[in-house]
């Protein structure tokens, strides 16, 4: 594996909810310009880790650095402004805003004068190139002026991804973006991931869909019971006996279409 710049570095991060340790001193990193996968069985602490990285769960120990800057104590919106985007497992769109407006929320940055400008100044038409690119990439251009509640579950997922991408983040954490998509949709979605890295967006993909993760990721980290049990290329992960025991069960390691532990 060639040496690349480490965009996100996680050092001994621990997340506790009451007496339960969801993430136990996890150290890992995400290299710039790549698609990194994070997999693990249910309850392994994947979403807790994503929440901790993006400021939605309290970090009780360890450090998170984004491009060398310590972001461990920053609030969620500050991290988002530091080019760290994320999606949610449960989608969580702004249901009263159109698809385009959902994306615009991600793309805009508040300034102290925004309120004065936006109430007193003339209306600006924000024709951000980024929005158009995102809508095109995800095939949402035809529904840009619809409300999310009018779309299918799969396309709602894509709006969630689009909203995170519209901010043109350097790193985007996708929390189970393919859950709820059928296998065709999932395939199409996987092909978008490459377009992201070509556009300069690094991806951390958290998903249950083993086929997607194994086929699209450059590097994979495996969590179990809040700890990292393996990391490496898809080939190495497929062959790793601990991963097979923990995650893939007794099935043959050579099968790439293992269903995993779907919810």
């Amino acid at each position, binding site marked *: 594996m060639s040496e690349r710049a480490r965009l996100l570095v996680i050092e001994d991060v621990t997340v506790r909810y009451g007496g339960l340790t969801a993430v136990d001193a996890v150290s890992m990193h995400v290299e710039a310009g790549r698609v990194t996968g994070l997999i693990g069985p249910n309850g392994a602490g994947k979403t807790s880790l994503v929440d901790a990285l993006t400021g939605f769960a309290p970090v009780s120990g360890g450090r998170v650095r984004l491009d060398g800057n310590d972001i461990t104590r920053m609030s*969620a*919106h500050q991290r988002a402004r530091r080019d760290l985007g994320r999606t949610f497992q449960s989608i*969580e769109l702004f*249901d009263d805003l159109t698809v385009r407006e959902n994306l615009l929320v991600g793309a805009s940055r508040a300034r102290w004068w925004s309120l004065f400008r936006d109430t007193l100044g003339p209306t600006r038409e924000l024709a951000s190139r980024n929005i158009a690119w995102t809508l095109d990439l995800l095939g949402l251009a035809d529904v840009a002026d619809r409300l999310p509640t009018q779309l299918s579950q799969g396309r709602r997922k894509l709006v969630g991804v689009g909203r995170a991408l519209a901010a043109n983040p350097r790193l985007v954490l996708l929390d189970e973006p393919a859950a709820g998509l059928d296998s065709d949709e999932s395939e199409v979605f996987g092909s978008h991931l490459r377009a992201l890295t070509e556009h300069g967006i690094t991806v951390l993909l958290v998903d249950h869909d083993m086929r997607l993760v194994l086929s699209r990721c450059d590097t994979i980290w495996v969590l179990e019971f809040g700890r990292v049990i393996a990391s490496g290329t898809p080939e190495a992960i497929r062959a790793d006996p601990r991963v097979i025991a923990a995650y893939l069960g007794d099935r043959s390691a050579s099968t790439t279409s293992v269903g995993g532990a779907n919810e």
Partner: protein
Amino acid sequence: MHDVLLFAVLGLGAGAVYAILGLGLVLVHRGSGVVNFAHAAIALFAAYVFVDLTDRGLDHWTAFAVTLVLAACGGVLIYFLVIRPLREAPALARLVATLGVLLTLQSLMPIVFGLDARTVPSLLPSDPVEVLGVTFGRDRLWLLGITIVLTVVLSAAYRFTRFGRATQAAAENEKGAILLGYSPTMIGAANWAIACSLAAVAGILIAPITSLSATTFTLLILPALAAALVGRFSSFSLTALTGVLIGVTQSEITRYQGELPGWFPQQGLKDALPFLVIIVAMIVTGKLIPRRGTLSEGRPPFATPGLIRPRWVLVGAAAVMLGLIVAEGSTTYESAITYSMIAGIVSLSLVVVTGYVGQISLAQMSFAGVGAFAVSKLAEENGVPFLPALALSALIAVPIGLLIGLPALRVRGVNLAIVTIGAAVAIDSFIFQNTDWSGGFDGLGVPKPTLFGWSIDPAAHPQRFGAFVLVVLIACAVMVCQLRRSDTGRRMLAVRDNERAAAANGVNVAATKLQAFALSAFIAALGGSILAYQSGRISFQRFSPLQSIFLVAIAYTAGIASVSGGILAGVLAGGGLSFVLVGELVLDDWYGVISGVVLIVVVITQPDGMAVSWSRLTRRIGRLRARPHDALTEVDVVQPVERRMTVAQGTR
């Protein structure tokens, strides 16, 4: 020492009533997940019924029993007609519905029972008794005893009976309760019946001590809410204890306020105390009312895209000017048209804070009052000219808006409504009722306005003044429309829809809420200062907390998340155009009752408000006549159906 004890005992009367009202609030919340702002009004209504029955010759105890039964029936009726249909509605809709009940009952009382003062027979023996060297009426001990017994009985009943456990189960998880075979409907109805009977008890017991007055009585809700809030809307004993303590402390304040330093605003302290209790409770316990596990959470009113249609602005403006010309000579109509526009401005402030950001504020008329107050101080006492006085008054309200917005960073929904109405009461009692500052009985004076050396005195030149207000209204409406279509507006709606997702997309949720409160206070105070100029003399009853409550109710009915709704709310507001028009047809007295009932019906049937429903209807008719070519039209018409579907899926 003697005095301390005496005043403590005297305070037991009010304290017991706060406690009993608080118990009723807890019951209703447990049983149906609603914070009932009409609870004190129900108590007053029951007290009137009781007096009426005794006047008709029934003996006291029979009248008492009959009143309790009637109150229970009334509770069941309210539950089935108002609360149950809103089971899946957003919290604000349910809150507004109880405001509708409050408005209806409050306006019904003078019609049914007349305006004459009534003496209320006391059920409890009030002969003097001496304890520890202090002599007082025996009824205070009875009140305390009744409170304790009720609290113990309720606590035991809700812990040890099947019904009590079912209520608890439904409050925590409605779906689970259904699966266990309990009917949430029956549980809700039963709890409403018990709660309304308790309200009747409270009303009948307190009436001989205070007097039957709508204003004071309805605002008894505040100490009761404070008590229930400390009890987290679930603990009977904590609620009752807090209620009694508030009553006792208020009594001690009346005893000792003469000894407070002179600069201290003394009059307001007694009424502001419940507010202080609320704030402390908020800070100590954080998220106060536990979220109820209902079947599904309803969507807030639809926020229209905020497009400005120049044609309609021109038509509207022309209609207003035509109205002012036609109404020439009729002071009633001239001032009604102008007042409607002013109320429209204040309602637009609600569109920003409640419609766009989803923060329920019951303090908007207080902001308006602050504007009026400031105008008088600036213009009358310091000779500041018209336009600068307006601008400065509106700006002065901004820090107050920010201050009241601060709790919104920690609490939301109904909790915030309680905090803001507490703040409204505090502002009312500290500033507006303070005779040193607010001119006492005469009110504060305001000079006649002139614009660039041109008199726009509303008495002498009502059309000029009306035209000026129209310009301000249009400016505010355009501003709020612009806001809706801007980045800031999208961030506001993002916060309203989903705070988590907003933060994940770089939206500073706290800053966004505070901006909304600041802008909203500015607009409301602007409206209030114009109202001061219109009246020429400020009487602060127009800015009382009750007025804020009515304004929210009307704005919600009209469409709280759309600019057209805000303007419509102005037309509908009490004292406005429709008020006068309806007054021509039927008696003025009925206006409140009609608005209350309409409010409830609209909340249940038109969740997005009248203005939005109306524009959908006209567009649908337009679509039947011509083929659509506007994509947005399609979206808006499809909208309600789609939303029902997502509510039905109930996934969140």
